[in-house]
């Protein structure tokens, strides 16, 4: 009864107040007179208001005595008393200090850029959506200082490896944490190759997103920025802010992007010398073959269609954003396809006069990847095609890759060679097929209670669940890698991430001092489980009967791991007169992966920023100058399942085995301590420079060691240091009403040193990638650097002269030695963007300088005699090793060797998968035109708010490239297999058209 009375009085009051209102109309424009869309208009003292439409017009019911506040990012806010005016014309001044921008920081907290004590880099939506890629992370390449991005050589939608400020962790992940709207998401990959023998790329989690849903991406590069996310953020954070509906604004956007993708940087094959003999695998014959298959002919022109539709609308209380996107990519390898559907619904609402904000988001993604190309030696049509003998009638084997076998009553592979690697490449594409279906659902809910004007509380929950179903069918008559009945491989995985947090936030000013403080707790629980089976040589119950129940002799495995982290954290930002900012954060984590008696770890950070232009008089041209520094410690847990090994386990054959050879982890959490110093200078709109120095020490790394009893023990050891500089420079040389020219340079350098590995044993080395009887390995040793490539080099005498045998063929070094490091010494991205009236042109040049990579592809082509290199050598009469000394059978140096070695003998010995690696190292330096776009924006259309048409290109050409493949390609997004090419799918050059239409 009492409630009813309250309700009635509420309605009455509301009605009466409405009666006194009147409608105010107007337009908000910038200095140039153009209307500004999306300006937020609030009636002061209330939560009521509206937003301007596309032309900057608005209309609002407001009391006559009200004051209206107009605000918009990048402009100085204005408050106006309405008085008796009914038609307002407001001009907002542009805020020249870009640092007043609001930046989304850890946990989704918005802060003014000026107050930050660390470097961040923001990438806006349009930089992500103009030149699209099935894995949207590829659009970040070259745009952020200190971000190194390598893409998997596994075709459309393959994984990416992102490294921020170098590799810190030996066995842990070195990839950043991905966060959507403040909450961590799972970047789950079900499989990555682990040796040069190869394997499949199971795709990653970040590629599942629809780039159209993204408002902006903020890259938190250092520990200082990400400290509040704790251990999982030790490698930086990619913070993704998604779009939401806008109050008072209805908008439907359709965008369509098409690109045609062409294989680029192909292996160079010779066409002068045919097969050595009939049935032979190599091509050391003497006759010129009548027809020699060209490297490019295996590939088709790939196509990528990305179409998306989104709608955003809302009232003052409830705003909705809806989107659908479809990605359809046909890879350059015939029969490789990727298809993806994304659905997103986001609803934000503000209730009880702004006292309670709710935010709900649900998205569903289904992805179907067919025949994602494998890299390495097995199941790789690119390899089979490239290594096939020169002169083989490839056209015939393409059209008739199978023939009917009368004895078996079955279509079988048609191929004249017997080899496990080099089978009919078209059989490998049609007789061996794979399908990987991923379903992913993400749902989150958040509530924010504004308790007073200076205190609010927030709670959020997210569930992120990915289901991967992978199956591979290898048909009968595939040589060696399948038995007579065929082979079935099934890998099913479920990955689930739960996250919940509660945060109390206060913001209060005491005189000149403003304090923003936050106190919170979070729980995160991630589980991966699944079922895998591989019939392998056990075979199937009937030929080509690809059914789980038909698997013979092999048993399924049930991979499982789970990790839970509970945390409390707090931070305080103390600002003195917009001049000095002090940041303090602390966090304590409890991780399930650590020993029970030692699973809690605490770590702090401190940062300080001084805004010089507020403190001292600077020349007028300097609109802003800022110095900042931060010191951060981050603790890190270890992989799950290491603290309590059972006395017995099941081995891969399903047998019980003694597990006393595996010892428990009894050590400490890892810690990374990092120092970051930087300054920023802004000369009005003309120039902005951000310079950062960082130095990170990661200690107490956990690694598996084999002790002297051959027992495996996870221990803490090692100290890895990363230090470097990052600089971002923006200059706007021309800025008029019609013409704007913006040039952005970002530069970064990182030096990685393994300061200590095992102090008690300086000779200790850790194998990141074992040699596995091939030419490449990646080894960590004290004094070395992360990713160092080890292999055999040419044996040399004390003076450094190469030693050769009696035939002039170089000898191998006795031991494997450091052949180089694949990471670039420095990186540079240079973007130029010119806007003239409705036209805009954008070009991004991306340079990576330094580093060395190995090509087993080239080594194997050379051994088989199919490469152009071997044809050149044959025409030159052999291979000369400059300055060589020859050695007799007993290892004694006999004298100078000045003849040429027979090309076949030479390459048969130094080439191949177990090549003399030192001869197959290449400078990884490359400079390329990474992105180019030309857009026309149709303004003043009656039927649409916006129509932009762009001609786009990616990876258009190299200004400089020395390696025989694109060094941006990586075999794995894990820690190993960096800087090695084993028949990765070639890089692609893409050109296309992009239309963005909204009404």
């Amino acid at each position, binding site marked *: 009864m009492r409630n009813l009375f309250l309700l009635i009085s509420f309605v009455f009051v509301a009605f009466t107040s409405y009666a006194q209102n009147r409608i105010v109309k107007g337009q908000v424009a910038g200095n140039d007179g153009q209307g500004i869309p999306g300006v937020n208009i609030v009636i002061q003292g209330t939560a009521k208001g509206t937003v301007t439409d596309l032309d900057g017009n608005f209309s609002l019911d407001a009391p006559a005595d009200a004051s209206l506040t107009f605000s918009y990012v990048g402009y100085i806010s204005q408050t106006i008393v309405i008085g008796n005016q009914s038609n307002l014309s407001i001009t907002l001044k542009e805020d020249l200090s870009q640092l007043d921008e609001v930046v989304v920081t850890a946990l989704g907290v918005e802060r003014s850029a000026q107050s930050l004590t660390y470097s961040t880099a923001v990438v806006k939506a349009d930089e992500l959506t103009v030149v699209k890629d099935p894995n949207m992370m590829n659009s970040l390449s070259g745009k952020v200082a200190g971000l190194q991005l390598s893409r998997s050589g596994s075709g459309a939608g393959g994984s990416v490896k992102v490294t921020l400020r170098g590799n810190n962790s030996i066995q842990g992940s070195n990839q950043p944490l991905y966060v959507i709207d403040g909450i961590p998401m799972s970047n789950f990959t079900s499989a990555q190759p682990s040796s040069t023998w190869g394997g499949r790329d199971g795709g990653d989690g970040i590629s599942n997103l629809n780039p159209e849903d993204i408002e902006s991406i903020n890259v938190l590069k250092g520990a200082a920025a990400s400290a509040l996310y704790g251990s999982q953020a030790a490698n930086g954070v990619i913070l993704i802010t998604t779009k939401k509906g806008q109050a008072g604004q209805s908008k439907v956007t359709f965008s369509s992007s098409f690109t045609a993708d062409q294989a680029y940087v192909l292996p160079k094959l010779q066409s002068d010398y045919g097969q050595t003999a009939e*049935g*032979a695998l*190599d091509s050391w014959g003497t006759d010129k073959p009548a027809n020699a298959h060209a490297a490019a002919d295996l590939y088709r022109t790939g196509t990528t269609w990305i179409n998306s539709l989104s709608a955003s609308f809302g009232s003052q209380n409830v705003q909705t954003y809806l989107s659908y996107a479809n990605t359809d990519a046909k890879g350059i390898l015939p029969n490789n396809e990727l298809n993806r559907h994304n659905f997103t619904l986001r609803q934000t609402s503000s209730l009880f006069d702004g006292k309670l904000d709710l935010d709900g988001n649900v998205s569903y993604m289904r992805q179907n990847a067919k025949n994602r190309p494998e890299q390495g030696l097995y199941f790789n049509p690119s390899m089979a095609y490239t290594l096939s003998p020169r002169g083989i009638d490839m056209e015939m084997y393409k059209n008739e890759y199978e023939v009917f076998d009368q004895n078996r009553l079955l279509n079988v592979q048609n191929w004249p060679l*017997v*080899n496990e690697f080099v089978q009919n490449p078209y059989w490998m594409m049609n007789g061996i097929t794979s399908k990987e279906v991923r379903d992913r659902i993400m749902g989150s809910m958040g509530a924010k209670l504004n*308790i007073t004007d200076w*205190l609010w509380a927030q709670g959020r929950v997210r569930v992120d669940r990915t289901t991967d179903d992978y199956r591979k069918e290898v048909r009968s008559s595939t040589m*060696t890698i399948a038995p007579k009945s065929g082979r079935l491989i099934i890998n099913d995985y479920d990955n689930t991430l739960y996250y919940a947090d*509660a945060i*109390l936030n206060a913001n209060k000013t005491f005189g000149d001092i403003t304090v923003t403080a936050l*106190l919170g*707790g979070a729980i995160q*629980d991630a589980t991966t489980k699944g079922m895998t089976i591989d019939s392998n*040589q056990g075979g199937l119950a009937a030929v080509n009967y690809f059914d789980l129940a038909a698997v013979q*002799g092999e048993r399924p495995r*049930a*991979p*499982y*791991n*789970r990790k*839970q982290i*509970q945390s*409390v954290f707090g931070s305080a930002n103390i600002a003195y007169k917009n001049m000095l900012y002090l940041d303090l954060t602390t966090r304590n984590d*409890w991780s*399930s992966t650590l020993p*029970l008696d030692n*699973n809690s770890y605490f770590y702090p950070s401190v940062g300080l920023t001084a805004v010089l232009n507020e403190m001292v008089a600077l020349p007028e041209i300097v609109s802003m100058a800022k110095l900042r520094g931060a010191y951060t410690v981050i603790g890190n847990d270890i992989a*799950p*399942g*290491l*603290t*309590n*090994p*059972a*006395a*017995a*386990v*099941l081995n891969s*054959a399903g*047998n*019980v*085995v*003694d*597990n*006393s*050879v595996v010892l428990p982890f009894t050590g400490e959490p890892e810690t990374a301590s990092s120092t970051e110093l930087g300054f920023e200078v802004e000369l009005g709109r003309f120039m902005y420079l951000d310079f950062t120095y960082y130095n990170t020490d990661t200690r107490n790394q956990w690694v598996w*060691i*084999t*002790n*002297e*009893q*051959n027992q495996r023990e996870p221990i803490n050891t090692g100290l890895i240091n990363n230090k470097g500089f990052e600089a971002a420079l923006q200059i706007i040389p021309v800025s008029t009403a019609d013409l704007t020219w913006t040039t952005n340079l970002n530069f970064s350098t990182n030096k990685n040193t393994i300061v200590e590995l095992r102090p008690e*044993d300086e000779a200790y080395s850790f194998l990141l990638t074992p040699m*596995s*009887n091939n030419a490449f390995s990646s080894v960590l040793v004290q004094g070395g650097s992360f990713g160092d490539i080890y292999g055999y080099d040419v044996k040399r005498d004390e003076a450094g002269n190469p030693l050769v045998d009696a035939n002039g063929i170089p000898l191998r070094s006795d031991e494997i030695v450091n052949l180089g490091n694949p990471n670039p010494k420095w990186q540079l991205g240079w973007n130029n963007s010119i806007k003239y009236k409705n036209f805009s042109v954008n070009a991004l040049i991306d340079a990576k300088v330094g580093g060395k990579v190995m090509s087993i592809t080239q080594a194997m082509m050379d051994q088989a005699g199919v490469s152009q290199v071997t044809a050149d050598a044959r025409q030159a009469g052999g291979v000369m090793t400059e300055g060589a000394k020859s050695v007799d059978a007993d290892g004694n140096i006999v004298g100078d060797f000045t003849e040429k070695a027979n090309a076949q003998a030479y390459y*048969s*010995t*130094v080439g*191949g998968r*177990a090549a003399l690696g030192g001869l197959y190292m290449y400078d990884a330096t490359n400079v390329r035109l990474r992105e180019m776009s030309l857009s026309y924006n149709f303004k003043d259309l009656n039927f649409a708010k916006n129509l932009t048409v762009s001609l786009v290109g990616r990876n258009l050409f190299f200004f400089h490239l020395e390696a025989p493949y694109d060094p941006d390609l990586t075999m794995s997004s894990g820690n190993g297999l960096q800087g090695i090419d084993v028949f990765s799918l070639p890089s692609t050059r893409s050109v296309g058209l992009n239309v963005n239409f909204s009404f």
Partner: protein
Amino acid sequence: MKKYIFAAVAALGMTTACTDNFEDINKAPHQISEESFQADYLFLKAFFPQMQQSIYYNFGNGYGYQLQQNLNADIYSGYMTPPTPFIGNKNNATYALVDGWNSWAFNKSLDNILAPAKSVSKHMDLAPEFYGVSLILKVAGMHRVTDMYGPIPYTKYGEVNEGGGLPYDSQEAVYDMFFEELDMAISLLKDKPAIANFSEVDQMFKGDFNMWAKFAASLKLRLAMRISEVAPAKAKTLAEAAISAGVLEGGDLAQVSADGLKHPMALIKSWKDALMGAPMESILKGFNDPRLAIYFDPSDQDGEYRGIRQGIEIETKDTYSDFSGINDNVIGVNKPLLLMTAAEVYFLRAEAALNGWSAGASAKELYEMGVQASFDQHGAGDASTYLADATSMPADYVDPENAANDIAAQSDITIAWDAAASAMVNKERILTQKWIAMFPEGQEAWSEYRRTGYPKLFPVEVNYSNGTIDSEEGIKRIPYPSAQYQTNAAAVEAAVQMLGGADHGGTNLWWDVD
């Protein structure tokens, strides 16, 4: 407002540190729970399949077997040769010893033999029979390892050792311990009634402890004969004691078979990585031996039986990949893993008798029983005609791919026993027939070849050992894994001292006195 803050802080404090279920969360996959481990005495019996399948084999891992034995002993015994020019033909076959391969036999034996044996030994008082069998399996597994490397870590494994390392024992000390352990096992097992819990995991003798005792005595005989040249007096005592304790005889076979157990050679056969060795072709063809067609497949090349010489120039795999493979009669996917045969034991006794030791019968009788036992084992029928053949001799070897590899037969040994022949010739006769009979178990064949020099095998043509291994003498041992120099440096350096020569393939083992 203060009370709100207080309440919020209190709420946060309560949400944290609920870490009670962390132990449960942090479980690794495929771990046996404590309850399951105790139930039905699993903790006693669990590791017997592992040990039994790790002696000849690498427990569920075909390529593991390839590295453990097939790419070393199976080649060096003359039984098999890979047609594959691994690592540009610079590999074990050409004496460019590959550390990454040769560490397997060492490391895996610690994990799959010594570690589980240690776990079983914790319960020796509760279950003496289990302990007894574990000792036999330990010797059966580890004597192969010491016969590859020389001194090995044995008596100090799994213990906290002073100075932190894992000390090696000299080969003599290891052998002494073997004999001690075998004697202990025989006394623990002889005439003991079967135990159901053990029978369930017995993949060799269906729970018959007397058979285990016979196997132990046979191993003792094998090892006694091994030291018969370096320590003849001790060898005589041990051999005679072993024979009188009761050894494998008639159709007895010490072999491992179990549901789902796959012969590792079947997988290697599918890769065509191990084909017939040239010595097998030379001897079996020369002897017109009926076991030729039982052991091998005709070559795909011309239907003849063709073996490959070890240590030759090979450029590509296809050159020799159509030579004779190994017949499924011997290494079919469901064939048991053969550890020791009655035939071998007869030949060991024949050699003992030839030495003048008490072996229960004459050398001739035992020799002929050995051949007949082998024929019976392979269904080759009556051996009397074969045994009467006094003229057939090993044949010259012809390589149809490369005449440079052609080579004359290395011996004129015949089949029929010749009482008039010298002891040396009859020893060669016994060892040659033992070599044929033990196929495909290359480890024992290689050890006995090194001890006796029989049968005479072809030398390598291509030798990349940098002068450490003599081509005529052949390889004498496998070097220690390089990882030992990293993790256990002081101990392995002491082991090299005990070895009495450099840590390479040319240094003789303790029992190998030429």
